[in-house]
């Protein structure tokens, strides 16, 4: 057991919807590659995030991947990793170079900070807003989950940028975005918040549910159905639902981005290869892997997604994972960038 690689996962929750999907793909990769994985749930509570790195170091991990809740926490996490010679990669997150230059600098200089895999949240947000605007929405409600969450803040940037872009192009047909309200991470609070938003703004024609693991989205859709506004208010979100296909069909959902549960897999690969010495970690930089969101805007899209992403299927088969383990960093980036519903369909159709 001594020489078996051990990789830690610091995650908000390994038991909620998105978290358990992440766990599923990581467990599969670990099994394929003969790696031990250890999970620590930190609920996005700052002090628990920083403590999780320590716990993983104690557990004897050779490397860890983390989904932090704010950039500043990374200073402490990077220190812990450096002190304990534990490789580190972030998933879903990137250190904001402008807002947190110190942490950014630390990440670059640390020989244990391998890199980050993240979606471009602003781009994702922008794209979703573009979709709803094109589908005719002009007054858009916004529901986040926790105030101040780093991911939400990134997406919110994107939504605002999307509106600006639209308004710049259509000076005579302006769109507006409401201030966000927060629906927490359960479906009943999500529904109550969505109802409140709609009651206060009966004229909205779109609602963005920024995320929160899918439960608030379920609640928001229930709210709209309950008010008899299905189809009148477009809903877009960044979390996939188990019954998204039906919702799309029924017009309850307009578009959805997601599929990001595969993102930690690439962070895992970064750390795995760093431990094996394949990816040299420089003291002046780190690897940045951009993960593409998958966008689903029609029932057909969703069908393909459902077939190859959910249930027992995973986007990569074990032999693919084995092969990927020896990818160079550029190949890995490429594979990541190439991941899409059609990519999986093409690969698995063979």
């Amino acid at each position, binding site marked *: 057991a001594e020489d078996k690689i051990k990789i830690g996962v610091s995650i908000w929750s390994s038991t909620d919807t998105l978290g358990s999907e992440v766990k599923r793909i990581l467990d599969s990769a670990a099994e394929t590659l003969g790696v031990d994985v250890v999970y620590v*749930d930190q609920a996005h509570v700052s002090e628990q995030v920083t403590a999780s790195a320590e*716990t993983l170091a*104690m557990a004897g991990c050779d490397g860890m991947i983390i989904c932090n809740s704010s950039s500043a926490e990374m200073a402490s996490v990077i220190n812990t990793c450096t002190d304990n010679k534990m490789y580190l990669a972030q998933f879903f997150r990137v250190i904001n170079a402008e807002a947190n230059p110190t942490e950014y600098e630390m990440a670059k200089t640390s020989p244990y900070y391998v890199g980050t895999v993240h979606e471009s949240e602003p781009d994702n947000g922008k794209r979703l807003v573009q979709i709803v605007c094109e589908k005719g929405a002009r007054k858009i409600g916004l529901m986040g989950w926790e*105030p101040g969450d780093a991911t939400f803040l990134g997406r919110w940037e994107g939504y605002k940028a999307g509106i600006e872009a639209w308004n710049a192009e259509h000076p005579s047909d302006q769109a507006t975005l409401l201030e966000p309200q927060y629906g927490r991470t359960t479906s009943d609070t999500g529904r109550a918040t969505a109802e409140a938003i709609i009651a206060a703004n009966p004229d909205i024609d779109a609602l963005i549910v920024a995320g929160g693991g899918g439960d608030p989205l379920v609640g928001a859709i229930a709210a709209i159905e309950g008010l008899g506004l299905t189809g009148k208010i477009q809903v877009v979100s960044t979390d996939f639902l188990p019954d998204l296909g039906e919702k799309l069909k029924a017009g309850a959902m307009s578009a959805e981005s997601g599929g990001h549960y595969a993102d930690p897999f690439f962070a895992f690969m970064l750390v795995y290869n760093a431990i094996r010495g394949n990816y040299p970690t420089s003291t002046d930089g780190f690897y940045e892997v951009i993960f593409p969101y998958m966008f689903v805007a029609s029932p057909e899209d969703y069908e393909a997604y459902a077939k190859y992403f959910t249930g027992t299927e995973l986007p990569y088969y074990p032999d693919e994972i084995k092969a990927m383990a020896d990818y160079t960093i550029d190949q890995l980036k490429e594979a990541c960038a190439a991941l899409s519903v059609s990519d999986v369909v093409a690969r698995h159709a063979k």
Partner: protein
Amino acid sequence: MKSQNIAADSEARSARNLRNARVHNRLQAFLPLIGLLIIVAAFAGLTDGQIVTMRSVRLILSQVYPLMIASTGVFMVMTLGSLDFSQGSILGISSIVISWLSFYSIPLAIVGGILTGAAIGLMNGFFHVSFRIPSFIVTICTMYLFRGLCAYLTTDAPVAAMPSITALNQDWIKLAITAGVLLAAFLVFRFTRIGIDLKAIGAGELAARYSGVRTDLVKVLAFVAAGAITGIAAFVNVVKVGSITSTAGNQFETQILIALVLGGLPISGGAKVRFSNIIIGTLISLILNNGLVMIGLDTAMQQLIKGVIFLAVVALTIDRKSLKVIK
């Protein structure tokens, strides 16, 4: 003659009872420590000794600081037989204040954090004492209130402290602060009348009042102290974390409660509290948290085991004798 025998008999019996009671009391006092040792031994076995390596000890200590500091304050409140559920919110708000002030000067930030905590503690104490509302109702209300405030202040972005503050994130500094707080609290608890007063109020508030204890004042002070001390914990937190998000301090109050109860602190407070409850409790709590991860169990299983161990430890160590009615 016969009655004399009976008297002698009952005398002997009561002497024996007393002896037994003393032995039992002493054992009761050591149970938490025994619990700690058993847990350490068990995890040492399960992790091939990993948990007792120097590295693990250092890392556990690093996590223990804020919890141990804040528990010290809550220890005083719980000695009174009261509860403080606003601790997490205090940690959050104080951390925010410290982060803001850290741009001006570090000492100012520390003072600011302590004052913020003390102010919230004062509010708790004021409502509890002057309206005679049970402390747990008051502190649940203030928890709600200040958690909202914390979220409000961090809506647009996490509140970042001055970046260089994390340079203070060094073991010796945190250790020094924690040791300082523990030592100061210990000295106050042991060498001033505050300690006696706190225990007396917890053991019998009315009699304490008749013995000259200014009960209302002492109670308010305990809440203020608990807030202020958590202000210090907030400083350690900021130093470690660097920026404060809306979730800062979430569930901190429950962690403190669990830790202190695991350490053998009677929930009714009183004279049977021991300062060691703080240290043993926080250590048990963190060893449990980390040990279960080290074994590599999945989260739900970890939590299941944690719940069972918690109940078992409490059931075995709790002192039921000093609770007249168990509520």
